[in-house]
Every structure is written in structure tokens, then in C-alpha cells.
């Protein structure tokens, strides 16, 4: 009988936690060797490398197998998570190995998201360390419920049972503190192979299984959710007679004839067929990639959730969630990000960082922003309701990533904890008079002209002239000036990056209301970040938002210095001053680019009038 041929041969994904000092590489190498997974050329290479590393010794140094990554690190090549594969006669294994100390939280979270189980290594001589707590915390955060505690280097403590027992009981109380989970402990000596591939005779007091046997036999939960859930990934329409919803079942199971609901929303239908390339099925369960057809025409598309109609998923647009920040730039509250959850992508903002968590002590700390590798507990606000589950119930419907809208980098992962109640209680009030009617009564097209540029660039000057000109043309206008708003609406905000983001968000929302009222709104704010200008743009309909880049070189602004602010900033009297010690991100493709040194104010005004009132230049 060949290896892994049988249909009962299963897959276990696990992560190893511990540093090289704990003997992690040795343990992993030994495990591969004992499972018979090393090829002849690998063993030869290992023998060669071992002789070089230890000229006097005969034994194989298993750490050299997986420490190949160290060489890459020395070459300046980034290693974050490496995946290794091996199998025994009973199971196939995928091991996520995170060698780095830098960026450890990010890498470990990534590895843990792919794991059913974690092997936590502890050096018997040292007992539990700060990192043991950190590793266990991150595993718990990512929902790993089973942990194998491998107390390593037992040979160096003379295989003493009392040492092993005291480490086990200390760890169990730690695990209990961090949340309920199942701990399987075993004593090993990876270097000698005690209790790795085979049970050791050196520790007769231990009756349990060796590590390999434990990994082969340990039960892993089939599925956390019991109610049927399947996000629509792709709509299959080969011809007008067939419309199938392709996806992977991420909770429970579904049978032909079951009633399902399309969420968000409440359209219902019954499953007509469960289609696969190997023939139709009667039942599709957790983990299967299938295509469902329904007994009636309904409107479902990618991103929708097909769920048990009797027990549908909750829906909400505001959440509390744990997040791990993975971006090089910090998380700024109120900046907009794309949030991908299941197969759906929505716009999301972090409205509030309730606290960040020290990964070593789990202490809750106040925070205004989250930096790379920090864990935070945050409130999120989405631009639409989604069907979800809390992460602990269903990781597919409760786990998400945030994507930077400009760089497209993955900047965070998160785990939904619960929906905030106000989301379901505050309803959008339907109003009879809409923007179109309000605009019609004023006889104009509402617009938002967004003037961005350095302090002293001339934004207010041009906007002021433009408003007068528009007034003479019979337009209903309003000018929102950033400085003026800081005396009232934004009085509580300073000039840190966080405050600037919030400042622009408020101004954008007010401008949005005024455009909704049918006005032509002129906004003058430095708005130094592209992200926030993009956020502002996203609030408006196509063609409504006009980004006006008032482009005056820094030297010229500084020379003009109408409010004496540059002088103060240079003298260090005010901090976070745009252009001096705070960045200005130039617009890439503004609708209107005003190079103030090359144009007269009147010419600029006429250019803007032409932009929003085509054909009005008499």
C-alpha cells in the first residue's frame, strides 16, 4: 500500500512557535527525518553540513535542515512565513514556520491563520518566557483552539518529571487566562529524538504519545459553524438556461431542496441542484467547492452570502474587532480602507481605537494610532451592511483584511468580535425631496470644488473670487474654509496626522450635505493626504467632485507667508506644519491644475467657471 493513497488520509495544518534557541529548527528537522521525509540528497547534504558545523561530532545536526533560511536572511532576503510539507502513513501535514523575530506578530498571525493547531516549544531549562505568552496569545487571537506544548531539551534537565510537571501546570494556567483551549503537553528532547518520532525510553514516567503520533491522531474540529453558509464567489452562466452560484461552503452543509436566503437582504429560494464536475451531489458540506442552482430566478452576485433561510447570518455595518496592523504606515482612525471579508469588498473606516494590546502582557493601552505589528481593539464603520458571523463562530465570515486604497497593500487583518448595537437601531430615514429636486429649484448642477494646496498657496483667494463670480452668474454657493471651520466644528482638532484625517472627513461630510442641498460648494483645506481627498471624492456622484490643485511652490508660499505661519514653523514654534515637517502629497490627476505663478487670478476663475458651468462663458 502506498503512502497517503487512502481516502481517509487527512490533512493537518499546524504552526510551530518558538525561537531557534528553543530548538524549534531541530525539532522540525527531526520530525521530518523520523517521518522518513528527507530525500537521499537532503540527508547527504545534511551529513556534509553537520561535519562542517561540528567537526568532532558524528551526529546529524537537524537544525541545519530548516536553518537554510538563515543563509537567505544574511543575503538580505526577507523571510516571513515558510511552509513545509510532509506526510506519514496516516496524515499529510502543512507546517507554517515563521523564523523571524522582526515582524513576528504579523508573520505569526499569518501562519496561525492557516493552522488548525499550534506546537508551542518551551526550553525545559528556562520554563515559560515572555515569548511563550506572546505566541499563545496570538494563536488564541487567531482562533487556534488546540495547542501541543512541547517541553524540549529534557535531556539537559536529566529527564526530570518534576520540572516537566511544573512547566505544564504553569502553562495550563496561562492557557486558561488567555481563553479556553485544549492543551496536550509532552516532554521531548529534539536533539536526541526522544518522543519525537518514537516514544522514548528515557522518560518511563510519560505514558502519552510521541509528537508524530499525537499529530497523526489528534482531532481537529471539522467546522466551527453548524448553519449553512456559502459566499457567492463567481456566478456561472454558460448559457441562458443555467445560472449557478459557485463558492466554497464555509459553514454547515446544504441539501438539495433546502431553503436558502441571499444576504444581505431576504430573498429566498430552494436549492435545485448541487453541481460539481464529478456529477451532482445531494449534500455539500463545509470545505467543499461546489456550484448551486436555485429553483427560482433571484438576484444574487459575487459577494452575497447564501445562508440557511431558517437561521440566516446577522447583518450589520458597525463592528468591534481585534485588528493586527501590518502596514508600514500606521493606522489612522477615520481614513477609508477597502475591507475584504468572505468574497465581499466594502469601504470601511476605523472610527475609534478602543485600546491597543501589549502582545507580551496583554495589557490594554490607550492609543491614537496603530503601528506595524501592533494589536488593537477597534470600532469599524462600513459603507454598507454585510452578512457576517463573529470570528470565533466562523472565521471565513468574521475574518477580514484591510487594503490601502491607493497602494493596494494589505495593511491589516481583523477578527470581528461583535456588531455594535447602534448599527441596527439607527435607520436611514427616507425623505421625499431629493438632491435632484433641490438642485432643480435652484436651476443649477450641484458641485463640490475641492481646493487643495499648501498653506499660503492662494486657495482662499481664488475660491473667494470664484464665489463672487458664481454669485454674479446666479449660482447658489457656499464656501467652506478650513481655517474658519477650525473655529467651530473642528475646534477640538489639532494638526497631528490623525487629527488632519478627521478634519478632512468632517469637512467632506459637511460639503456632501451641502451638495445634497443643491449648492455649489467651494472647499478650501490643505488636505495634504491623497487618501482623504479620495475619501472626499468617494462621497460624491460621478462628475460632482472637482479636485482643484492650487499649485504654488513651497518657496513662494514661504515668501508670501500671509499669516506668518511659515516663519513660526521654521522657528519651531509650531509643529506638524505641512511642507515643513509634515508631508503634502501632490494630486496625481486633479480635474483642475492651477499653476498660480503662471496665471492671473481672473484667468484661474474663468477656468473653474468653464469646468462647472460649461457653455456659460458669455
Amino acid at each position, binding site marked *: 500500500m502506498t503512502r497517503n493513497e487512502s481516502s481517509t488520509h487527512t490533512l493537518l495544518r499546524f504552526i510551530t512557535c518558538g525561537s531557534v534557541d528553543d530548538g524549534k529548527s531541530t525539532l522540525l528537522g527531526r520530525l521530518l527525518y523520523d517521518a522518513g521525509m528527507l530525500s537521499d540528497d537532503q540527508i547527504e547534504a545534511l551529513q556534509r553540513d553537520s561535519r562542517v558545523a561540528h567537526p568532532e561530532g558524528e551526529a546529524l545536526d537537524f537544525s541545519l535542515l530548516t536553518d537554510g533560511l538563515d543563509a537567505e536572511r544574511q543575503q538580505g532576503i526577507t523571510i516571513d512565513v515558510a511552509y513545509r510539507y510532509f506526510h506519514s502513513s496516516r496524515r499529510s501535514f502543512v507546517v507554517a514556520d515563521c523564523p523571524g523575530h522582526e515582524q513576528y506578530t504579523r*508573520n505569526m498571525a499569518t501562519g496561525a491563520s492557516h493552522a488548525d493547531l499550534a506546537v508551542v516549544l518551551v526550553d525545559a531549562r528556562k520554563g515559560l518566557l515572555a515569548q511563550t505568552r506572546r505566541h499563545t496569545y496570538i494563536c488564541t487571537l487567531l482562533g487556534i483552539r488546540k495547542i501541543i506544548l512541547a517541553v524540549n531539551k529534557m535531556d539537559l534537565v536529566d529527564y526530570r518529571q518534576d520540572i516537566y510537571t511544573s512547566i505544564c501546570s504553569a502553562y495550563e494556567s496561562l492557557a486558561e487566562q488567555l481563553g479556553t483551549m485544549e492543551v496536550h503537553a509532552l516532554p521531548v528532547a529534539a536533539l536526541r529524538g526522544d518522543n519525537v518520532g518514537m516514544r522514548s525510553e528515557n522518560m518511563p514516567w510519560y505514558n502519552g504519545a510521541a509528537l508524530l503520533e499525537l499529530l497523526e491522531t489528534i482531532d481537529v474540529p471539522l467546522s466551527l459553524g453548524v448553519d449553512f453558509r456559502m459566499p457567492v464567489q463567481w456566478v456561472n452562466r454558460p448559457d441562458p438556461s443555467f445560472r449557478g452560484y459557485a463558492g466554497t461552503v464555509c459553514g454547515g452543509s446544504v441539501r438539495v431542496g433546502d431553503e436558502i436566503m441571499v444576504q444581505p437582504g431576504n430573498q429566498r429560494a430552494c436549492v435545485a441542484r448541487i453541481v460539481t464536475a464529478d456529477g451532482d451531489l445531494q449534500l455539500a458540506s463545509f470545505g467543499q467547492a461546489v456550484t448551486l442552482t436555485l429553483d427560482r430566478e433571484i438576484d444574487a452576485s459575487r459577494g452575497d452570502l447564501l445562508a440557511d433561510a431558517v437561521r440566516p447570518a446577522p447583518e450589520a455595518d458597525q463592528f468591534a474587532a481585534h485588528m493586527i496592523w501590518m502596514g508600514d504606515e500606521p493606522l489612522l482612525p477615520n481614513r477609508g480602507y477597502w475591507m475584504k471579508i468572505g468574497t465581499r469588498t466594502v469601504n470601511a473606516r476605523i472610527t475609534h481605537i478602543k485600546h491597543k494590546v501589549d502582545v507580551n502582557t496583554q495589557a490594554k493601552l490607550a492609543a491614537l494610532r496603530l503601528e506595524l505589528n501592533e494589536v488593537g481593539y477597534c470600532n469599524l464603520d462600513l459603507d454598507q451592511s454585510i452578512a457576517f458571523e463573529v470570528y470565533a463562530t466562523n472565521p471565513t465570515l468574521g475574518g477580514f483584511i484591510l*487594503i490601502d486604497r491607493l497602494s493596494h497593500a494589505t495593511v491589516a487583518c481583523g477578527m470581528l468580535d461583535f456588531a455594535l448595537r447602534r448599527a441596527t437601531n439607527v435607520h436611514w430615514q427616507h425623505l421625499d425631496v431629493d438632491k435632484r429636486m433641490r438642485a432643480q429649484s435652484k436651476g443649477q448642477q450641484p458641485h463640490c470644488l475641492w481646493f487643495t494646496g499648501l498653506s499660503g498657496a492662494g486657495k482662499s483667494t481664488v475660491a473667494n473670487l470664484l464665489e463672487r463670480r458664481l454669485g454674479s452668474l446666479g449660482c447658489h454657493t457656499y464656501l467652506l474654509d478650513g481655517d474658519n471651520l477650525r473655529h467651530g466644528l473642528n475646534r477640538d482638532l489639532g494638526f497631528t496626522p490623525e487629527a488632519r484625517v478627521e478634519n478632512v472627513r468632517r469637512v467632506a461630510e459637511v460639503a456632501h450635505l451641502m451638495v445634497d442641498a443643491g449648492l455649489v460648494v467651494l472647499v478650501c483645506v490643505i488636505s495634504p493626504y491623497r487618501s482623504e481627498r479620495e475619501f472626499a471624492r468617494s462621497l460624491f456622484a460621478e462628475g460632482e467632485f472637482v479636485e482643484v490643485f492650487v499649485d504654488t511652490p513651497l518657496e513662494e508660499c514661504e515668501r508670501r507667508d500671509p499669516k506668518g505661519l511659515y516663519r513660526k514653523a521654521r522657528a519651531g514654534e509650531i509643529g506638524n506644519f505641512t511642507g515643513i515637517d509634515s508631508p503634502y502629497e501632490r494630486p496625481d490627476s486633479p480635474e483642475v491644475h492651477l499653476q498660480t505663478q503662471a496665471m492671473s487670478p481672473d484667468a484661474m476663475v474663468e477656468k473653474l467657471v468653464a469646468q462647472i458651468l460649461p457653455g456659460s462663458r458669455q
Partner: protein
Amino acid sequence: MNTLFSHLDSLEAESINVLREVAACFQRPVMLYSIGKDSSVLLHLLRKAFHPARSPIPLLHVDTTWKFREMIAFRDQIAAAADPPLMVYINEDGVRRGISPFVHGAAVHTDVMKTVALKQALDKYGFDAAIGGARRDEEKSRAKERVFSFRNTQHRWDPKRQRPELWSLYNTHVHKGESMRVFPLSNWTEMDVWQYIKREHIPLVSLYFAKSRPVVARDGALIMVDDDRFVLRDGERIEQRMVRFRTLGCYPLTGAVESTASNIDEVIEEMTRSKSSERQGRVIDQDVSASMERKKQEGYF
């Protein structure tokens, strides 16, 4: 979090999920079809993923003009089936320059006829996602590769700019000109591939099975004499040996292994017994140490 199915079922479902994600999220995806066993598995999965529709993702073969003749014949059958359609791209500039692995060496040949050709093809057709059959267990630098691997506008792989990949949530966003290489078989091992081929009765090029073939022993490898372009060195002679191939590529750069395994059961049996790693037979990988890492950065798969 799944042990309900066999490990092959889990791997199949995961790969289908990845393929569907590509179809749903990219404007112009393509699958790079290399005629080998991994490509055969990928093609099988591609057909399964979109059943009963035909795969919306076409196939592209980058032909270096030095593939085994049997491979080309096999490819032409796949092209004739047109399920899905298959395009062939050749770097004609390289052909005009007469690039040959015998004359220019493995590194130059691979760069011009494979890496450069691939980039030309991706640019020509404007593909924003290219699916490949690479597996993480093949080679050390691939162990850390993402399933969705980001490439900049020059098709370069920057290990520092790879996106963290959690759960099965893939960040598929790219700007115009940037692209993604996608590896649905990332978590498969060589043995999984063979087991799956057996289970699903996937047709393969017969070069994977032992037969008496004309070979030359060169630099520790057995190179098959596939056509009259083969340039014999002094002292070399052609001999008939029972050999098969574990991986397929350009015939002058692909070492055969001596074997009597002439069908899939025997191949699996042989793999279980003998243990040498798969890419040993590939001359290109041994050319420069850490070569794969470097080639990846230059835009090779």
C-alpha cells in the same frame, strides 16, 4: 479547519477556490500551460472549477522551441480540444538570434526564451493575472511564496513587497500594468500531484514513464537526444537506457532518471522507495546557487 475529506479533496477544493477567485477578480487572466504534470493537474482543476461552463481563463504556452517533441505533440492535442483555448508564444527575436542552450548555455537560453518571452507575452496580451503550477515544496525559495504573488510593472518579484496572506482571503488589487502570478498548487507536494493524477485519470506526456531512450551522460545528468540539434562533445556517445523524467522542460536542460517504472502505479511505488528531490534533474537550477530566488526577481515564474 477541515478533516472531513481526504487530503486530496481538501487540496482540490482549495485550488478551485483560488481559480474561481482569479476569474472573478481579474480583467484578463491566463493560465501558463507548460505541458508538464503540474500543468496537467492545473488544467484538470481549471475545467472542474468552472463546470459546466467552459473555463473563462485561456491557456498560454511559452514555447522555447527546445521542448521535447513528444511534449509539443501532446500540447497540440490540448490545443485542438480548445477547452479552453490555447495560445502559443515564441520569442521570435530570440529565434532570429539563434539562441540555443548548446551554444549560449542554460542561463542565457532560459532568460531569453523563457523569462523574457513570458514578459513579452504578458505585455502583448495585457494579462493581469498569470496562473502557474509552481508548488512550495519544490524548492527552498518557493516555500515562502504567496498564492497570489504580486509583480510590479516590470514583472519583478520583490520579496519585501509581498502582501501578507491570511486565511483564504486574497488581496487581488493591482494597478494598471502591475500583475499577479497565481499558484493554486502552492500547498501540493509532488506525491499529492501523482496521487491526484492517478485518482482522476489525468492524461500525461509519456516521457514521465520509463522507456528505452537515447541519452548522453553529461555533467552527472542523463540528457536525452531528442533531435538532430543535439551537439555531442568530445568523448560523448549516445546510448539506449531505460529512463523517465520527473520534471519536463527544454530537452537539453532536463536530466532523465534511470527507472523501470512504466506506469503510474510503478512511478508512485518508485517514488515511495527512492528519495531524491525533484528538481535535481533540472540543469537550470544548479547553474548558480540561490538561482531560483534571483530568477524569480527577474520575472521568471
